[in-house]
C-alpha cells in the first residue's frame, strides 16, 4: 500500500500554487538557462573543433612583400608543406571600420555561409556575420569604402581562421566592431583599388601531433621561409589568436554558470526547508499524532521532502526541455555575439543533463533532509504540545525596555520569532544583489575605463616600428645590414612632435612559473631623459599603474619577466609607479633599456607623437597604439557582454522578489491566527500591516544596507579573479557613486511590489481564523 500521505501532495500543490509557482519559475529559468548554455557550449565547442577539418584550417600563414616566385614556392613546398594563396586587401569604410577582403576561398580556410548567398558579381560582397551584427548591416545593404568603391552585401559568412576577429595577432583584444572580414568573387576582388597584401597559408603534409612538435615544425619552417624570402609576418596556427582565442575562451564560463545554478538551488533549497519547517510547526499536532500512531521519523522526513524534490524534478524536466529547445539558441546567440563561429548542430550532452537535473535534485534532497531530519528529531510529545524548541525548559521572552513604544516592541518580537527565516532572507538578498551588482558594475567599469583612458594616454599616437625580417636574416648578413640601414634612414622623423622611444617586449611569469595569472606581454619603454610625453620622476625603473594594480607590485619590489620563447629571465627592481592605466608596461630611461637588452646606443623602436605619423612607410610600422587600440578591450567586452548584463539584472531581481515574497508570505501565514485575533480586537488593516509588514520591511532594508558593502567587496575579489584568469591587460573595478542608490532603489521598488501582495494577504486573513481548531 502506498502511503496515503502522498495524496496530500497534489492538493498541497493546488492550495499553495502561488508559492510553488514562483519557486518553479525561478528553478525552470535557472535550470533552463544553464542547461541551454551547457548544450550550446558543448555543441559550439564541437562545431569549433570539427571546423579544423571541415573547413580545412591552415597550419599557419606568413606575409611577404611581394608574390612568391616559382623557385621560392618550390623551395618552401620542399619543406613538406602545401602552400595556398591567402592574399587580401584592406578597405577603410565610411562607417569608420576596416574590412579585410579575401577572394572566395575554396581550398584552405573555406567559407561557412551562414545566411544569404556568396558573391557572384564584381560589386557583391559577403561579410562576416558578427561584424554585420555589430554594425547593424543586413543583406542587401551597400558598403561604401573611403575610396568611393561600393559593394552590395549578398550574404553573411564565418571564416574559420577568423573565429575571433583579431586584426593583428599582437592585439590584446579582438575587435568585432571596427574590424571585419569579407569575401568577394575573384573578379570583384581583382578590381579592388586597395593594395594587395601578399599572404600565404601553409598546411603540413604530415601534421605534427603534440604542441611541442607543432612548435618545432613551425620553427623549422620559418627558417626555410626566412632563407627563401623576405618575411614580414609569420604566424603558426597555434599562435594565431584569431583561430585559438575562441577555443580557449569557450568553456571558460562553464564553471561560472554551473556555480550560479548550484548557488541558486542551495538558496531555494533553504527557502523550501524554512517554509517546510513552518508547515511542520503548523501541523505539529498532526505530526505528534502520526508519530504516536507509529509513523517513523524517516517516513515523515520523506513525506515533507517530497514536495521540494517533486517541484525540483518537474522544474528540471521543464528547464531541460526549454534548455534543449528555446534557450539553447539564446545561449548560442551569446557566443555568436562574441565569436564568428560557423553553424552548429545541437549535441546531446549527458553531463549537462546530470548537472542540471541530478545534482540540483541531490542538493535539494540533501539540504532538506538535513534541516527536516533535525526538526523532526523531536519526540512526539513535543509535537503534540506544539513545543518545537530544542532547548529544554520553557523559552523565556527577551526582556524589552518598556520605554520602547508598544508597536516597536511588537515588531521586534515578530523579528525575533522569525530570525531563521530572516537569515535565509539575508542570504537570498545578498546573492541576488551580488548578481545585480555584477550587472551594474561591469558596464560602469568598462565605461569608466574608456573615459579615463582618454585622459590618461601617454600620447595621442604610439607608433611601434617593425624591423623587416630581412634585417634579421643571419644567413644573408650583408643583405641584413643593408636592410637595417635602410630601415633606420626611412624611419627617422620629427613630424607631429614625434619623440623616439626604445621598446622591448617580455612576458610575465605564468602561474606554473610562479606568477599569479596567465603569462602576458609587458611592453618595456625606454624614454628620452626629458620626454615630452612620459615624465619619469627619476632615472629608475617605473611600472605602470595598471601593472601595479594587477600584480600588486609596489616601489621597492622586484618583478621577474622572461623572454617569450626562451628561458632567459630578467629581474627588475621597481623604483615607483607611473600613472598609466592603458597597459601593463614598464618605463625607464632609453639608455637603461638599451643597455639591459644589449640593443646598442641610439636604438629606438617607436615614436610617441601628437598625431598619426604619415611620413614613415607602412611596411616599417608594426602597430599603432591610439585611443581606439587602447579601448578595444572595453569596447569588445561591452559588445559581447552588454546583452548579458540585462539578463543578469533581470535574474537578480527575480531571485530577490521570489525570496522576499516567499519568506514574507511565511511570516504572515505563521501569524495568521494572531492577525485574525488582532482584527477581532479591533485593529484595522493598516495597523496590522504596520505590525507585521513593517517588521519584514525593516529587515529587508537592513539586509539591503548591510549586504551592499559585502557585495562590493565580493565583487572586487571576483572581478579581479575573472580579469586575472580571462584576459590580458587590466581594467580596474570602478565603483560608481550612484551604485548604492541604484541598488537600493532596485531593492526598494522590487520589495514595494512584493509588499503590496503581502498587504493584500494580511487583509484577506479572516477573523474566524483565530477561532479555528489550531490544527
Amino acid at each position, binding site marked *: 500500500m502506498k502511503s496515503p500521505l502522498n495524496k496530500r501532495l497534489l492538493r498541497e500543490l493546488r492550495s499553495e500554487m502561488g508559492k510553488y509557482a514562483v519557486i518553479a519559475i525561478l528553478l525552470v529559468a535557472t535550470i533552463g538557462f544553464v542547461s541551454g548554455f551547457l548544450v550550446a557550449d558543448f555543441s559550439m565547442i564541437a562545431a569549433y573543433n570539427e571546423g579544423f577539418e571541415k573547413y580545412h584550417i591552415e597550419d599557419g600563414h606568413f606575409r611577404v612583400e611581394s608574390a612568391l616566385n616559382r623557385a621560392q614556392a618550390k623551395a618552401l613546398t620542399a619543406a613538406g608543406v602545401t602552400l595556398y594563396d591567402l592574399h587580401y586587401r584592406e578597405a577603410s569604410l565610411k562607417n569608420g571600420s576596416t574590412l579585410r577582403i579575401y577572394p572566395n576561398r575554396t581550398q584552405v580556410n573555406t567559407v561557412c555561409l551562414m545566411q544569404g548567398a556568396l558573391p557572384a558579381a564584381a560589386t557583391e560582397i559577403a561579410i562576416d556575420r558578427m561584424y554585420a551584427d555589430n554594425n547593424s548591416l543586413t543583406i542587401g545593404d551597400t558598403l561604401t569604402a573611403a575610396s568611393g568603391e561600393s559593394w552590395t552585401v549578398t550574404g553573411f559568412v564565418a571564416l574559420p581562421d577568423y573565429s575571433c576577429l583579431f586584426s593583428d595577432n599582437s592585439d590584446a583584444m579582438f575587435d568585432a566592431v571596427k574590424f571585419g572580414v569579407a569575401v568577394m568573387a575573384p573578379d570583384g576582388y581583382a578590381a579592388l583599388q586597395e593594395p594587395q597584401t601578399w599572404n600565404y597559408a601553409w598546411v603540413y603534409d604530415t601534421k605534427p601531433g603534440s604542441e611541442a612538435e607543432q612548435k618545432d615544425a613551425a620553427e623549422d619552417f620559418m627558417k626555410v621561409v626566412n632563407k627563401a624570402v623576405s618575411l614580414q609576418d609569420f604566424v603558426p596556427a597555434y599562435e594565431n589568436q584569431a583561430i585559438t582565442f575562441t577555443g580557449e575562451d569557450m568553456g571558460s564560463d562553464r564553471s561560472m554558470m554551473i556555480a550560479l545554478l548550484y548557488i541558486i538551488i542551495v538558496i531555494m533549497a533553504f527557502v523550501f526547508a524554512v517554509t517546510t519547517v513552518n508547515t511542520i510547526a503548523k501541523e505539529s499536532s498532526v505530526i505528534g499524532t502520526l*508519530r504516536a500512531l507509529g509513523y517513523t521519523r524517516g517516513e515523515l522526513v520523506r513525506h515533507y521532502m517530497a514536495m521540494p524534490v517533486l517541484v525540483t524534478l518537474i522544474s528540471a524536466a521543464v528547464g531541460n526541455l526549454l534548455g534543449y529547445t528555446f534557450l539553447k539558441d539564446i545561449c548560442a546567440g551569446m557566443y555568436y555575439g562574441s565569436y564568428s563561429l560557423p553553424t552548429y548542430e545541437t549535441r546531446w550532452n549527458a553531463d549537462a543533463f546530470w548537472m542540471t537535473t541530478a545534482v540540483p535534485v541531490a542538493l535539494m534532497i540533501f539540504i532538506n533532509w538535513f534541516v527536516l531530519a533535525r526538526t523532526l528529531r523531536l519526540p512526539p510529545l513535543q509535537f503534540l504540545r506544539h513545543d518545537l524548541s530544542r532547548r529544554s525548559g520553557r523559552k523565556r521572552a527577551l526582556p524589552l525596555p518598556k520605554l520602547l513604544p508598544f508597536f516597536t516592541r511588537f515588531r521586534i518580537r515578530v523579528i525575533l520569532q522569525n530570525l531563521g527565516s530572516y537569515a535565509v532572507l539575508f542570504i537570498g538578498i545578498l546573492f541576488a544583489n551580488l548578481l545585480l551588482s555584477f550587472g551594474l558594475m561591469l558596464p560602469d567599469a568598462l565605461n569608466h575605463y574608456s573615459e579615463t583612458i582618454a585622459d590618461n594616454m601617454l600620447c595621442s599616437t604610439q607608433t611601434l616600428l617593425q624591423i623587416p625580417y630581412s634585417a634579421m636574416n643571419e644567413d644573408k648578413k650583408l643583405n641584413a645590414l643593408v636592410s637595417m640601414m635602410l630601415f633606420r634612414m626611412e624611419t627617422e622623423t620629427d613630424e607631429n612632435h614625434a619623440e623616439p622611444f626604445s621598446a622591448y617586449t617580455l612576458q610575465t611569469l605564468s602561474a606554473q612559473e610562479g606568477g599569479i595569472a596567465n603569462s602576458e606581454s609587458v611592453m618595456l619603454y625606454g624614454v628620452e631623459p626629458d620626454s615630452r610625453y612620459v615624465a619619469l620622476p627619476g632615472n629608475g625603473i617605473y611600472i605602470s599603474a595598471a601593472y601595479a594594480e594587477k600584480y600588486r607590485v609596489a616601489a621597492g619590489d622586484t618583478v621577474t619577466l622572461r623572454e617569450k620563447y626562451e628561458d632567459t629571465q630578467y629581474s627588475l627592481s621597481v623604483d615607483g609607479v607611473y600613472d598609466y592605466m592603458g597597459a601593463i608596461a614598464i618605463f625607464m630611461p632609453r639608455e637603461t633599456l638599451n643597455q639591459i637588452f644589449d640593443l646598442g646606443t641610439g636604438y629606438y623602436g617607436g615614436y610617441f607623437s601628437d598625431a598619426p605619423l604619415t611620413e614613415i612607410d607602412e611596411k616599417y610600422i608594426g602597430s599603432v597604439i591610439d585611443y581606439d587600440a587602447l579601448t578595444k578591450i572595453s569596447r569588445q567586452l561591452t559588445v559581447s557582454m552588454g546583452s548579458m548584463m540585462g539578463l543578469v539584472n533581470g535574474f537578480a531581481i527575480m531571485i530577490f522578489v521570489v525570496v522576499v515574497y516567499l519568506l514574507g508570505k511565511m511570516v504572515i501565514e505563521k501569524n495568521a491566527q494572531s492577525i485574525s485575533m488582532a482584527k477581532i480586537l479591533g485593529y484595522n488593516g493598516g495597523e496590522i500591516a504596520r505590525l507585521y509588514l513593517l517588521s519584514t520591511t525593516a529587515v529587508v532594508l537592513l539586509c539591503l544596507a548591510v549586504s551592499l558593502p559585502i557585495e562590493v567587496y565580493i565583487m572586487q575579489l571576483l572581478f579581479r579573479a575573472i580579469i586575472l584568469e580571462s584576459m590580458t591587460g587590466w581594467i580596474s573595478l570602478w565603483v560608481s557613486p550612484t551604485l548604492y542608490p541604484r541598488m537600493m532603489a532596485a531593492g526598494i521598488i522590487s520589495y514595494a511590489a512584493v509588499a503590496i501582495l503581502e498587504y493584500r494577504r494580511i487583509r484577506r486573513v479572516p477573523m474566524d481564523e483565530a477561532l479555528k*481548531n489550531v*490544527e
Partner: protein
Amino acid sequence: MFLQLQQIKKSFGKGDNRVEVLKGIDLAVEKGEFCVLLGPSGSGKSTLLNILGGIDRADSGDILIGGERMADMNEKALTLYRRRHLGYIFQMYNLIPNLTVRENIEVGAYLSRRALDVDELLHVLGLWEHRSKLPNQLSGGQQQRTSIGRAIVKNPDILLCDEPTGALDYKTGKEILTLIETVNQKYGNTVIMVTHNDAIRLMADRVVKLRDGQIRSNTLNASKVSARDLEW
C-alpha cells in the same frame, strides 16, 4: 497479565522546581479489558498514558506489554512498538486537513499488516456518507469518529484514549463513548481511557483512580453500564 506496570515514577523540572508527577504506579490490565484512568487535572493520568504509549519515558520502573519490556526499547523499537500494537485517540482530533475522511483512516491502515477493512469500518463509525469530506466539512463528533477510525483501523492491541470526549457536547460525547465500547467489544482491543468525567467509570471493566501521582483505588466493575445509558 497482558499489560503490567511496576513502580512507574516520573518527575519534571530540576532542583526546587522538580515536580514528581508519578510516584510509583503499579498496575495490571487484562487483554481486551476496558480500563478507565480517572482523576482530577494534574493527577498524572495523561503522563501515565503517554508513558504507556511510548511517547514519554518513565524515570524508573518497568512496563511489560505482551511480555516485551518497554525499558529495553530504543527509539526505533518504540516506534515499531507503537506501529504494531497501539492506537491513539486524543481530545483534539489532529486530522490531516487536506485528506478526506476515508484517507485519514487510511493513514492508520497503512501502518498495519492486519488492518481492518476501511469500508466496513466507515459503516461501523457511521461515516460512510461523509467518507469523501475534508475535516473542515465535519462536525466535532464526526471528526472524533474519524480519529477513532484512524486509531482502530490498525486493529491495535491497545487503544489509548486521552479525554476523547473532552471537547464534545453531551450527546456527541455519548455517541463517541458508544463507538469506543462497540470497537472494544467487536474487535477485542484493550482500551485504556483517561478521563476526569466520573460517569464514564460505569462503562469500564476496570477503574483506576489517580490523585497526586498515586493510585488511590483500582477496582473491577461487577456490572458495567452501557455507554448509551450513561448520564452526567
